[in-house]
């Protein structure tokens, strides 16, 4: 790893200094019924924590954040604030510059992390009902913290070597490093969250065992790899799954660099993950980076601010191009794409791309990274008893409860892939649902006993 390479992954937004934070906090109008709070999936009291920064009450500020979101430190870094809280900020209308809410949240949570101020307090009063949580990603961690706050026991089973899920292995490096994600998890553990790492449910412990040992189960397993996308030649050396590619940087940076430096990289897909891959490849010193997307720029699902970032760092977008096959001799040499045009709108309302017959193009490539959407963790989901799936996702009610009342689910495995903050919100909501479920169950049991005594 070279020094320049290290620099290239420096955070795009460095932390605020004290004067910057104060000036920014003072700019906040302190709206009534604030739109930023409504825009936040976890409903952090944004003006509340910002005004506390203004008065120098950083401990209180961090508490306000953590009360709504125990992963406030990582959300401060990875949230697409441009489309959430900051996108809703009224100051955008006044000065064309919304309050830097994410940066202020980071300021307060950094203070808390540096001083070991724990994100939540475990209830001293125990409540009956033990909960197993599958997956130590954002939704599972949030769910566990909420349950502990109320007094239930919760144990997280996580297949990964290190906890944190996508926060640790799947976030663009310039937004958040694994060190930050792991430090945040460590704080949660200090506060009482119990994580059994390296335990894969279905392999090291069976679902039946969980059922006997626990009164409720939360499934927050996220999504899996990108998987095969059905391209001829995709088994050639040099085709790397987007999730593996992002994780590799975090696990073995030297290896990720060797794979990328000086190479021609083609990324397939138009979502936010594909943009993360693009920016990572550029920062690792790729000779050139192309992003292949079968529709046009208007249809790109990635956030506009992220697309802009990719463009600015030199990525070339190849729109209206459908990958057809990977070519190469043992090793990848290029990607053949089919020229497309937009036809009539499909069932989802988006115009369907259709091939322009006879127009094919070969993009020279040493590294091809499909980033077309992660696969569901069917290995686990299919084995959950009586848990109904729809399009490979557990069907849940507003309490995040599945068709099997003992099972709750949330996060990417339910949403199909959203932001960390959405996963936290769903973990919280599931915890509230579980508390209700355990309470009802308890009152039924109590009621029966009470009735028996009569």
């Amino acid at each position, binding site marked *: 790893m070279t020094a320049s390479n290290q620099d290239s992954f420096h955070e795009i937004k460095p932390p605020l200094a004290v004067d910057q934070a*104060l*000036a920014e906090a*003072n700019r906040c*109008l*302190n*709206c*009534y*019924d*604030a*739109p930023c709070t*409504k*825009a936040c999936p976890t409903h952090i009291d944004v003006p509340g924590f910002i005004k506390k920064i*203004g008065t120098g009450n950083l401990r209180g500020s961090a508490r306000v954040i953590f009360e709504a979101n125990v992963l406030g430190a990582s959300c401060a870094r990875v949230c697409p604030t441009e489309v959430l809280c900051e996108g*809703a900020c*009224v100051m955008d*209308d*006044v000065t064309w510059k919304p309050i830097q809410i994410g940066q202020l949240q980071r300021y307060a949570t950094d203070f808390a992390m540096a001083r070991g101020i724990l994100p939540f307090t475990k209830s001293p009063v125990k409540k009956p009902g033990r909960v197993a949580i599958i997956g130590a990603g954002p939704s599972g961690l949030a769910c566990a913290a909420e349950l502990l706050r109320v007094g239930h026991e919760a144990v997280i089973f996580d297949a990964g070597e290190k906890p944190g899920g996508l926060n640790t292995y799947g976030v663009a490096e310039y937004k958040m490093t694994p060190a930050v994600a792991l430090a945040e998890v460590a704080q949660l553990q200090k506060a009482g969250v119990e994580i059994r790492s390296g335990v894969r449910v279905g392999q090291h412990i069976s679902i039946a065992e969980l059922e006997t040992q626990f009164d409720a189960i939360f499934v927050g397993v996220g999504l899996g790899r990108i998987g095969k996308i059905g391209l001829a030649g995709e088994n050639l050396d040099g085709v790397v799954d987007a999730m593996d590619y992002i994780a590799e940087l975090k696990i073995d940076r030297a290896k990720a660099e060797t794979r990328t430096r000086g190479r021609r990289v083609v990324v397939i897909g138009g979502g936010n993950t594909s943009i993360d891959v693009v920016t990572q490849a550029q920062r690792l010193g790729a000779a050139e980076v192309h992003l292949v997307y079968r529709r046009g720029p208007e249809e790109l699902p990635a956030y506009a601010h992220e697309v802009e970032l990719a463009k600015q760092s030199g990525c070339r977008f190849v729109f209206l191009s459908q990958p057809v096959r990977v070519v190469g001799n043992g090793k990848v040499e290029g990607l053949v794409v089919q020229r497309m045009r937009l036809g009539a709108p499909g069932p989802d309302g988006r115009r369907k791309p259709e091939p322009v017959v006879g127009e094919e193009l070969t993009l020279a490539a040493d590294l091809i990274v499909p980033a077309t959407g992660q696969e569901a963790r069917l290995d686990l989901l299919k084995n959950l008893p009586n848990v109904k799936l729809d399009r490979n996702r557990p069907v849940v009610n507003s309490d995040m409860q599945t068709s099997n009342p003992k099972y709750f689910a949330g996060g990417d495995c339910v949403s199909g892939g959203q932001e960390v903050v959405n996963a936290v919100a769903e973990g919280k909501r599931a915890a509230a649902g579980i508390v209700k479920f355990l309470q009802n169950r308890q009152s039924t049991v109590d009621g029966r006993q009470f009735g028996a005594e009569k």
Partner: protein
Amino acid sequence: MADLKVNLAGIKSPNPFWLASAPPTNTGDQIMRAFDAGWGGAVWKTLGQPIVNVSSRYSTVDMNGQRVMGLNNIELITDRPLEVNFREVAEVKKRYPNNAVIVSLMVESNQQAWHEIVKRAEDAGADGLELNFGCPHGMSERGMGSAVGQVPDYACQITTWVKEVAKTPVIVKLTPNITDVIYPARAAKKGGADAVSLINTINSITGVDLDTFVPRPDVGGKSAHGGYCGPAVKPIALNMLSSIAKDKEVGIPISGIGGISNWRDAAEFILLGATTVQVCTAVMHYGFRIVEDMIDGLSNYLDEKGMRSVNELIGKSLPTISKWEELDLNYKVIANVNQDKCIGCGLCYVACNDGAHQSISAKAREDGRTRVDIIDDTCVGCNLCSLVCPVDNCITMKQIDTGHAPLTWKEYQKNPSAHKHLGPHNAH
């Protein structure tokens, strides 16, 4: 371009902008640089028997990131030898004959001492004298400064002594640390003062260090109250200025002081009766250069108002200041929200609902912001919503026709039942 020249009781100045007697006028070098920058006059930092100062000396009130909203000091009068100061006065006058140099004086309450220092100041070439009856810290403990200004008889007596020998105009600088500033102003007039200046600083403790528990400024673990000035004191100064300007017994020109930071502040002081204005804190914050926009801005303002001289502005607003009991009870305004400008922050709603008269309704807009509407029937026209609204001209107060003739409190009292439309709140 409007004429900015003024004449305060015989002291001529190319413009109304003077430096107040304070740290910016401590030395001849500073004053000459100030004149180069455009200041019309300067009141020399108070001369008297040299004293010894402490360290540290200043502290501020900052607000929401804005520094020096208020400034507090425990610095005393000049700590340089009198002969050095007078030599510099002479030098400045020689090099800047057209600028006004006023020398501020403060000595013990002794006729001889006053006579002596007045003569020395005038011999050095002062265009006028300002008697410092205002400093509220340090010197007051020794029977000088505000200790004099707070007792009208003393103020009158010392002014009389000064006038016995003074050949140049005498300005008496008043302390605001008194119940009614009119009395010392009248005493100054009685003693023969040619003008008054106000306000001097206000007794203050700006704050306490929450770690050391010592108020600021900290002098080795102790503090003492100081004198407060800067933008925060402007409203107090304007009120005192106008009350003196309206008082028929005083009737002498006024040099206005207190939180003047720009031409707008200056124009307000002049509108309420000041002939010249004196500035200190803004210069301590930003330097002498601020006078450029003060001159430019005031001049443009006068041009826009079609006034040829700043003298047309002096006291122009005074007739509009009346007693409360002379206000029209039948005048009515209500708030009006421009929904196209509204950003939906809801600040007017929460201010009205918690802090005023519950006359704004709020509901969530589709975009997650707050839709506010004025409840016309109960709006009392207090202005609060328009004051807290962060958007320029979004909430305005519109006059509505009540259909009733103007009515003062005096008239109302004669027969309240004839004015039932004014409601129970105003019934007695």
